[in-house]
C-alpha cells in the first residue's frame, strides 16, 4: 500500500520553527486590537448583581443576572478610555454569556449628547483561541507525520481557498447557479486533492474516475428519490442560514459533504489494488475486482459513521431547545435532524457505490502480467 515517497524530509528544525512562530502568533493575537476597525476592549473588573429566578411557559427553571463590566478600550479613537458596560446572562447561556476578567470583547461605542460614552458588547474576541488550536493541530501533524502531514495540510488549505472563491462566484451570480458552480467545484476539489496525494499517476486518474462516478451516482439517486417522493417529510425551509433558494443549496451541500468520504474510500481501495497487483501481477480482472470489494466493504461501515456522527451531532443545540420548548420527539427530529439524516444517507450511498466503481476501474485498467 505504498503511496508517493517523501521527496524531502521535514526536519526537526522546521518543526521547532513552526512551534516558536506559533507561540509568537498566539501572543500577537492577544495584542492585535489595532488591526480591528471595531473598538476592542479588555475587561478589567466584573461586578455581578443579584440573580433573578426565571420560569418560562414550559416550567423550565433558569435565572437571569446582570453584570457591570469595567472595560479598557485597546484601539481606535477611544483608546485607553475606561467604560462601564452592562451585560445580562442566564444559566443556560444559549445566546448570552457571563464575561470574565481579562477577556477581550468587541464593542459598539456611541457618544451621547452629554459627551458621555455609552458602549454595548457586540461579541467576544475569539481569534486567540482558534489560532492556538490551529497551531496545536499543525504542530502535532508535522511532528508525527512529517512530509505527508505537510501535504495533507496543503491540500486542505488549497481546498479552502477554492471553496472560498466558489462562494464569491455564487454571490456574484446572485445564487442562481449554485448547483452548477459546486458541481464543477467538486471535480476541481477531487482533482486537486488526488493530485496532491498521489501525484500525476495512473493511480490518480483511476481514483479520480471512481470518485466522480460514486458521487455522481449518489446525487442522481437522490434527485430521483426526491422527485418520486415529492420531498415528503422534508422541510427545506427549516435549513439554517439560508439567503437563497434552499433546495439547490441543500443538494450542493450534500455533494460536497459526501465528496471527501467517497474520495477516501476510492483512494484506499485503489491504492491497495495497485499494491496487490504489484505483488501478484497474475491475478485476473475478476480476482482483482473481488479483492477490491473485500477491501471496500471493511472500510464502508466506519466511513459512513464518520459523516453520520458529524451531521447528527451538529443538530444537538437546536434539538435540545426544541425538546425543552415542549415539542415532541418526532417534531424535533423532523425539524432539525431529518435534513442531516438525508445527507448522511446520500453520502452513505455514495460511499457504497464507490466500492464497485473503484474495483471495476482499477481491475480493468491493471493488465494481467503487466509489471507497471
Amino acid at each position, binding site marked *: 500500500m505504498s503511496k508517493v515517497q517523501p521527496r524531502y524530509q521535514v526536519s526537526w528544525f522546521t518543526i521547532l520553527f513552526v512551534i516558536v512562530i506559533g507561540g509568537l502568533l498566539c501572543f500577537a493575537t492577544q495584542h492585535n486590537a489595532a488591526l480591528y476597525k471595531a473598538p476592542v476592549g479588555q475587561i478589567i473588573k466584573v461586578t455581578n448583581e443579584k440573580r433573578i429566578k*426565571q420560569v418560562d411557559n414550559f416550567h423550565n427553571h*433558569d435565572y437571569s443576572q446582570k453584570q457591570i463590566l469595567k472595560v479598557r478600550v485597546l484601539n481606535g479613537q477611544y483608546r485607553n478610555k475606561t467604560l462601564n458596560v452592562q451585560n445580562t446572562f*442566564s*444559566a*443556560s447561556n*444559549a*445566546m448570552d454569556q457571563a464575561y470574565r476578567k481579562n477577556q477581550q470583547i468587541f464593542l459598539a461605542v456611541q457618544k451621547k449628547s452629554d459627551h458621555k460614552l455609552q458602549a454595548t458588547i457586540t*461579541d*467576544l474576541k*475569539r*481569534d486567540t483561541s*482558534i489560532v492556538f*488550536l490551529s497551531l496545536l*493541530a499543525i504542530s*502535532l*501533524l508535522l511532528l508525527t*507525520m*512529517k512530509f*505527508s*502531514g505537510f501535504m*495533507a495540510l496543503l*491540500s486542505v488549505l488549497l481546498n479552502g481557498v477554492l471553496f472560498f472563491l466558489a*462562494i464569491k462566484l*455564487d454571490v456574484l451570480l446572485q445564487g442562481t447557479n449554485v448547483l452548477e458552480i459546486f458541481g464543477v467545484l467538486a471535480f476541481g*476539489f477531487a482533482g486537486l486533492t488526488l493530485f*496532491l*496525494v498521489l501525484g500525476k499517476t495512473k493511480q490518480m486518474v483511476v481514483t479520480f474516475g471512481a470518485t466522480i462516478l460514486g458521487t455522481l451516482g449518489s446525487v442522481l439517486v*437522490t434527485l430521483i*428519490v426526491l422527485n418520486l*417522493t415529492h420531498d*415528503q*417529510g422534508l422541510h427545506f425551509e427549516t435549513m439554517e*442560514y439560508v*439567503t437563497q433558494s434552499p433546495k439547490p443549496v441543500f443538494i450542493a*451541500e450534500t455533494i460536497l459533504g459526501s465528496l*471527501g*468520504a467517497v*474520495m477516501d474510500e476510492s483512494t484506499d481501495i485503489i491504492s491497495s489494488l495497485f499494491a496487490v497487483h504489484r505483488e501478484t501481477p497474475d491475478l485476473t480482472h475478476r480476482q482483482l475486482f473481488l479483492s477490491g*470489494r473485500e477491501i471496500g466493504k471493511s*472500510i*464502508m*461501515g*466506519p466511513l*459512513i*459513521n*464518520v459523516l453520520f*456522527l*458529524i451531521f447528527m*451531532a*451538529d443538530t*444537538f443545540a437546536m434539538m*435540545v*431547545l*426544541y425538546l425543552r*420548548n415542549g415539542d415532541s*420527539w418526532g417534531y424535533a427530529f423532523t425539524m432539525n435532524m*431529518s435534513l442531516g439524516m438525508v445527507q448522511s*444517507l446520500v453520502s*452513505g*450511498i455514495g460511499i457504497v457505490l464507490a466500492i464497485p466503481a473503484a474495483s471495476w476501474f482499477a481491475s480493468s485498467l491493471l493488465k494481467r502480467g503487466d509489471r507497471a
Partner: protein
Amino acid sequence: MSTISVLVLILFVAMVLVGGLQGLKSFLSLVINFALIFMTVVLIGLNFPILGITLLNAVIILAVTIYLGDDDPLTTETAFYGSVLVMVLVVLLIIPMEHWAVVQGFGNENTEDLEGMSLLVGIKFLDVSIATTILSSLGAIAEAAIAISAGLGEILSQNPEIPVTRLFKDGMSVGRQIIGTTFNTLFFGFFGGFLGLFIWFERLNYTWGEFVNNKIFVSELLMILISFIGVILTIPVTTWVMELKVQRKRAKKIG
C-alpha cells in the same frame, strides 16, 4: 413513502448487495448509532447530566462502530482500546477549549430560527456544545483506529517475529497513508454542510475580523480541528496499544 425511508431502503439494499454479511453488520451499526445519538439528545433534554450521558454513549458508539466494522479480534480490540484512550485525551482538550472560545448555543445568525422560542430552558448549552464536539469527533477516531490496527495486524500476520520497535515505524507509515484522505473527509464533511452559512457571510459582507471571531464559524472550526487532532493522536496511540499487546503476548509465550 417518505424520502428518508426510501433512502434508508436504498442504502440498506446497496450495503447488503456490496458487502454481504459485513454490509448487514455495518448497516446495523448505523442503526444502533442513530438510536444512541437520539437517546443522548433526548436524555439531555430531560435534564440528565450532560457530560456523563455523553461519555457513556460515546464509549458505546466507539464499541459499536469498531466491533461491527471489522471481524478480526486483534484488530477490533486494539482499535477499541486505542480509540477510547484518544477520546479521553480529546475530551481533556475539548473542555478547556470550549470554555475559552465560548461558542455554545446560538449566534446572531440563528435569530430567525429562534423566533417564538424560550431560550431560558435551564440547560447548560456550554455542556451541550462539549457533547456535540465529542460526538462529532468519534467517527473519525474510530475509523483511523481501525485503519491503523488493521494495517499493523496485516504486517504482523505476514511477519510475526517483527521487533516491537519496528512496529512503531510501521504504524506511522500506515498513518501517513490515511492522514491525507481522512483530513479531506473531515474537511468536506464539516464545511460542505455549512455552505449556506458561508454564503451568508459573503452576502452580508462580513469583514475578516467578524468572520474569524464569529461564534458559529469558530464553533465549526473548533470541531473540525478537534477531529483532526483526534485522528493525528490516534495513529501513535493505537500503535502503542498494539505494541503493548504484542509484547504481552510474546512474554506469555516465553514464560
